[in-house]
């Protein structure tokens, strides 16, 4: 049985809210609620959702549903409602992003060395393997809860699962609290539910979700919906003397090499924001045009640190994110 990390209260010196954090899903999770006495109920609800998502979609748990499917040697599978939803979201994101956020990158990631929880990767031995384009999301068929997965297709729902998990957890926590508001961050993918504090939830936007890992970029106020960030700066490792990161370009099977190191996107749902941020990193030079077409507020940081703001993302510290027009 896996031991679940315990929540630790975070004292931000802010009155009227309670904040707690713990490791989860191979990254950090943070929950903020008001009124503060709703925290235990919120954490219990978030725990339940995280446990569920981990058991459904984790590529790094041998007993997860998706791992059992991958290891079954069969092509046709009947999946749980929860995994069906996660797969449906991943495939919809792939379609929406024209394949830039593709759930069939799992094989490429494993070949590159990201085949276990990131904390255990170390420095994989051997030269950089030849990978090539991923099988592509169109090779995966999902009809209700019936999944058909061709041989050799390895799924990784990383472009949407954390966002979906944040959406689920925030909604569940809000239902458990019955009042006030909730913010849930899973590795920097943030969903809010209920009534935000006056003026919104202040959220820092940076290269890494772990405060202190990287310098702060900006503080924005989130009054509704979600914000998610993808970055090539996080989750890097060496293979054959080459520095790699976890955002794979489905067209090459190698880590994306575009001009953007970090992209943050606001949307009505965190799954959409998550997918858009990842797709923008992959899109590289085309990210600006693609994001503009979505009309989602976005903040892009290039490798030199220069920042590009789109669709009303506030320039000033403390500015409020506009409500995204799509992504509900």
């Amino acid at each position: 049985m896996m031991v679940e990390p315990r929540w630790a209260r975070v004292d931000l010196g802010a009155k009227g809210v309670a904040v707690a954090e713990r490791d989860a899903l191979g990254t950090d999770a943070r929950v903020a609620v008001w009124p503060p006495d709703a925290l235990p109920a919120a954490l219990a609800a978030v725990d339940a959702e995280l446990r569920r998502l981990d058991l459904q979609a984790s590529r790094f748990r041998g007993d997860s549903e998706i791992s059992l499917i991958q290891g079954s040697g069969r092509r046709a599978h009947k999946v749980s409602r929860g995994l069906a939803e996660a797969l449906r979201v991943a495939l919809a994101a792939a379609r929406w992003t024209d394949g830039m956020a593709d759930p069939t990158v799992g094989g490429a990631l494993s070949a590159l060395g990201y085949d276990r929880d990131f904390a255990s990767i170390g420095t994989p031995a051997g030269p950089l393997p030849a990978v090539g384009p991923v099988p592509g999301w169109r090779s995966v068929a999902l009809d209700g809860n019936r999944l058909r997965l061709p041989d050799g297709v390895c799924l990784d729902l990383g472009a949407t699962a954390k966002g979906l998990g944040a959406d689920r957890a925030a909604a569940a926590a809000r239902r458990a609290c019955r009042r006030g508001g909730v913010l849930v961050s899973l590795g920097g993918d943030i969903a809010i539910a209920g009534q935000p504090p006056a003026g919104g939830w202040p959220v820092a936007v940076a290269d890494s979700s772990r405060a202190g890992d990287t310098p702060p970029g900006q503080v924005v106020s989130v009054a509704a919906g979600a914000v998610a960030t993808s970055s090539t700066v996080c989750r890097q490792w060496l293979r054959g003397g080459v520095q790699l990161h976890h955002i794979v370009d489905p067209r090459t099977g190698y880590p994306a090499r575009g001009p953007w190191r970090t992209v943050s996107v606001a949307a009505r749902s965190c799954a959409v924001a998550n997918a858009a941020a990842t797709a923008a990193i992959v899109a590289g030079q085309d990210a600006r045009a693609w994001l503009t077409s979505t009309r989602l507020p976005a903040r892009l940081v290039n490798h030199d640190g220069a920042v590009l703001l789109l669709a009303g993302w506030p320039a000033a510290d403390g500015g409020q994110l506009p409500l995204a027009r799509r992504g509900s």
Partner: protein
Amino acid sequence: MNPQDQSASGRLPGAGEPPSAGRGPGSRDRGIRYVRRLSNWTAAALVAATAVTAGYFARTTGHAPRPAQTVAGAQSGVASSRQPCVTVPVATSGGSGVSTQLPVRTCGPAGTGSRPVVIYVKSGERGD
């Protein structure tokens, strides 16, 4: 409809109240029919008034500023005077996990003009 009409001439005799002089069984039946007719009108008026009120709220809601949008499954409430005011960031939206790179120097303004450009170099394998 005047409510006083009902109380003045259509009121049923109370329990134990003697019938008025000059009122026989025929006049009592007429009174009952009259009251029933008035009751029906009252009910119809109430239904109509409720519909108008509901329609008013519907129109008002349509023109009112939208409450905060929330993620699916959550409730959005009206502004509450108990809402806290939070000024410090409660979370950081960033790439997940721990960076393996550390800033080594800062120089000049960034694209927004408010933040330093940070040049990163790899600081060694530090997977997390």
